[in-house]
């Protein structure tokens, strides 16, 4: 269970401080599929950064499985982060590693045996249609391929939670459908999925819970939401 309790995040700036999130509270049950919608700058990415303990909230707390995310000791933070698979908006693939190595890295971090890595990674590559790109470096990939590689990395270790920040932003309609179907399937197997997007068709096709953010505040939270801004 993920609990956002009265989260406010203000970015200090010399001119005028930017309020990214303002008193945001909501709850995500285990196994839920929640879409977070909003214009650019509405606070979607900030929300994910806070959940990943990449940044600290100005006020408020985030609980994951009853544990305050920002009170986790630095030495234990890597273990917390391994519970979460993230598709970053800017992919964040490791440029010095091949696609295969990028995906395998998460498993290596967790100490998974080499023979299991050799078995699991090709499956995910196949699932995301990247088998032919296994030995390419990120800079050799198209935008859509990078995005799929980022998705493959987020899935590989079967995390409890998946955060997907605009995972279809660079994909054509065919691949968009594929990826959303994939996320939905993973969700059916019990993984909590948080999807940030402003793709109307995706939201409408999913027919799942939609939380709408505007200027850092929740303006709508519907169980079977539709895209409306």
């Amino acid at each position, binding site marked *: 269970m993920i609990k956002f309790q009265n989260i406010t995040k203000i970015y200090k700036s010399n001119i005028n401080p930017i309020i990214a999130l303002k008193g945001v509270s909501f709850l995500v049950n285990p196994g839920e599929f929640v879409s977070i919608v909003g214009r650019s700058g509405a606070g979607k990415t900030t929300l994910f950064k806070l959940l990943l303990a990449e940044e600290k909230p100005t006020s408020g707390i985030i609980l994951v499985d009853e544990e305050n995310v920002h009170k986790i000791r630095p030495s234990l933070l*890597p273990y917390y982060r391994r519970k979460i698979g993230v598709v970053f908006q800017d992919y964040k*693939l490791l440029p*010095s590693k091949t696609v295969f190595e990028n995906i395998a890295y998460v498993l290596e971090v967790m100490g998974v*045996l080499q023979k299991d890595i050799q078995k699991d990674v090709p499956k995910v590559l196949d699932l995301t249609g990247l088998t032919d790109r296994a030995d390419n470096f990120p800079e050799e990939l198209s935008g859509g391929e990078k995005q799929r590689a980022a998705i493959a990395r987020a899935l590989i270790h079967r995390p409890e939670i998946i955060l997907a920040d605009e995972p279809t932003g660079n994909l054509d309609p065919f691949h968009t459908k594929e990826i959303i179907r994939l996320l939905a399937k993973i969700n059916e197997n019990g993984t909590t999925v948080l999807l940030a997007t402003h793709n109307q068709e995706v939201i409408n096709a999913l027919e799942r819970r939609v939380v709408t953010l505007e200027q850092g505040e929740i303006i709508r939270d519907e169980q079977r939401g539709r895209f409306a801004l």
Partner: protein
Amino acid sequence: MSKEAGLLYNYMFLISLKRAITSGWKSFKRQGGLSFATIFILTLALFLGTSLFFFQKTSEFLIESLKEKVDMYVYFQEELAGDRIIESRDELSKMPEVKEIVYISREEALERFTERHQADQALIESLDELGRNPLLASLNIKAWEATQYAAISSFLTNASFKDLIVKVDYQQKKSAIDKIFSITDSISTAGLVSSIAFALVAVLVAFNTVRLAIYNRKEEIETMRLVGASNWFIRAPFLVQGAISGLLAALITLLICGTGLYFLSPYLEFLIPGYNIFNYFLNNLWLVFSLQLIVGAGLGMLSSWIAVRKYLKA
């Protein structure tokens, strides 16, 4: 920790170590240009350090051999019996400053003289013409240190046998000896200071090269943290990469030094007889290489550690 948990922990450690080495080696290969630059700079630093080492050894040997050459002759009256001189010798040898003292009789002195001047026919002939041995018996004294000759000299002027002494051959050489010592001293000080300065600069440049290489990868380090890598898991491949650069730099330096000393050795032996720097290098090959290895790999790893630390803190 239970036995099973301990075993598992060790096993995990081994897996991570293997992964760090593999990953470090891959990064090293893939960043060809940067790796080359790092090795080059590390080699420069090691080379300067090694040169310093051999420079020190050479100047030590030079000073030693000069000190060996410094001695003092005390000449005794012509008609004096050998026993009296030997008595004086025994008295002198009680002085703590005296390292070695040798009695040279008049006959021995003549023998040495003729031997040394064999080629000089005119000199030998005039000596024959003289019909007697004109040379004096003497004591050849060696002190432990050059500065001690003054003390021995003043002892001689007050000694019980001072009236038997004809002349002391020290004052004549004194100024030349002092000059040689002051020159070697300043050469070795200047060499030491400039080598240390150069080596220090090289170390700083090496450190900065590694730091820049890692600066290029700071976003990568940030991503590694976000996907759940522990600090050690992130750091270790960088350390491996630094160690590989250091290792190769040490090998290259050893090769350069070996070749350089091989060709330099005959010239140095000509300048300082009895000093074969290449043999010295071969005899100390393992010591030199271990030092280079430790310093090279250490420098590479330390630079990596400090550079990565900055991005692991945030």
